């Protein structure tokens, strides 16, 4: 019997080991949300990110000159826009005063720098220099001057990992800026798409897409991208809207984390409402 088992092991040990390792992998796959795993992950990427930040610094110095030129141009453009907005602001204040509306909330911005990027067709993530010690928490949106990059997923003391828009696990409620139509946007591995949009909805190529107030993740209106095309499905009543993101993910270096965790604020509000009953 022992000889028989020994023979089987000798002939098929590669397969047994493969199956064992795959089962171990599947077990780990199902334990992603366990707190122990999250702690190990925070320590691991925090340590590794310290090393990547050194390399990123070297590249940043090399690109400073071109960045400077680009930023000067951007500065001039923004100055012109700001003048315009200042006028609108004054007008807005007057109108709000007339209507007795309260001003909108100001959101704290936490500056951070991208130290590493993990690109794959389905699981894009970025690691940023800034973590718990800077007040960054999971769920906070990450933006730059062009728009939304993603959402903080995990944090350590000094570093954080954010899921970018090009991550299949990130789904957002968005709206069309012009027609105010809401929809769900996700990354399909190739494009950002708004899915299951009824054909009768008024969405046109060139429309700007923002995060929606309905979103439980980000309810601040942040620009995401522009509608490229509507894939006309022959069958069914829904369209798929392809959106081109404003943010260039491969070139993004400096980002800001908006210091709000929307769902927690909403939860608190709902809890207060519940307590009053």
């Amino acid at each position, binding site marked *: 019997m022992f000889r028989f088992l020994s023979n089987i092991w000798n002939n098929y040990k590669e397969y047994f080991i493969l199956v064992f*390792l795959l089962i171990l992998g599947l077990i*780990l796959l199902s334990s992603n949300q366990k707190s122990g795993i999250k702690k190990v*992950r925070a320590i691991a990427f925090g340590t590794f990110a310290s090393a990547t930040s050194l*390399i990123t610094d070297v*590249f940043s110095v090399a690109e400073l000159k071109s960045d400077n030129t680009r930023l000067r141009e951007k500065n001039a453009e923004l100055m012109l826009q700001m003048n315009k907005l200042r006028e609108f602001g004054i007008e807005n204040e007057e109108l709000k005063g007339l209507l007795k509306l309260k001003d909108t909330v100001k959101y704290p911005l936490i500056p951070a720098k991208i130290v590493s990027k993990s690109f*794959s067709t*389905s*699981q894009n993530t970025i690691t940023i220099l800034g973590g718990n010690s800077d007040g960054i928490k999971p769920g906070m949106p990450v933006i730059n001057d062009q728009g939304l990059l993603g959402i903080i997923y995990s944090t350590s003391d000094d570093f954080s*990992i954010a899921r970018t828009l090009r991550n299949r696990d990130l789904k957002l409620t968005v709206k069309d800026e012009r027609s105010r139509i809401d929809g769900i946007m996700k990354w399909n591995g190739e494009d950002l798409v708004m899915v299951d949009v009824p054909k009768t909805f008024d969405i046109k190529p060139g429309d700007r897409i923002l995060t929606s107030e309905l979103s439980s993740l980000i309810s601040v209106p942040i620009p995401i991208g522009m509608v490229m095309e509507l894939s006309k499905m022959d069958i069914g009543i829904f369209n798929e809207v392809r959106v081109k993101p404003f943010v260039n993910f491969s070139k993004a270096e400096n980002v800001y984390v908006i210091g709000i965790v929307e769902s927690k604020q909403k939860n608190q509000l709902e809890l207060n409402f519940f307590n009053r009953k």
Partner: protein
Amino acid sequence: MRPYILPVIYFFLVLLLQTTVVNLISISNIVPDLILILLVFYTIRNNQIYGMILGFIFGFLFDIITGSLLGSSIISKTISGFTAGYFSNENKRETYLNSYAFPLIVLLCGIIDSFVYSFFSSSNLDSNFILHMVQQGIFPGIYTAAISVIVLFFMPKRSIR
């Protein structure tokens, strides 16, 4: 445990490049997988079981450090190590490592790795299966194989053991 220490040290160096420099040469969000090249190299140099265990270790470290879905790289890299292990024949080892057979092995493993990885890390597979296979498997595999041709030039010619 000792035979795994050096590859793991190399893994960290390669991961540094993968997460900082390699992104600069991405084409339509497709990047070459340097870690896979390292895995295939060490698997051919040793044996199939070694390749599977090394693939498991590489996948685990990659998932933990980059914030990917834990388990997706573990499974894809373990299967890649298993596949590359079929080419770790003692008599042909040197031929595989020092000829253009190496990029072809990387291509095969790259296609399998990318496809398995996307299969486990994607939440929906509602798109066309063949299209999915081409986009998520073959393109990254080809790009990785192309980069492995460059690696081939820097590979030691006689010190394979």
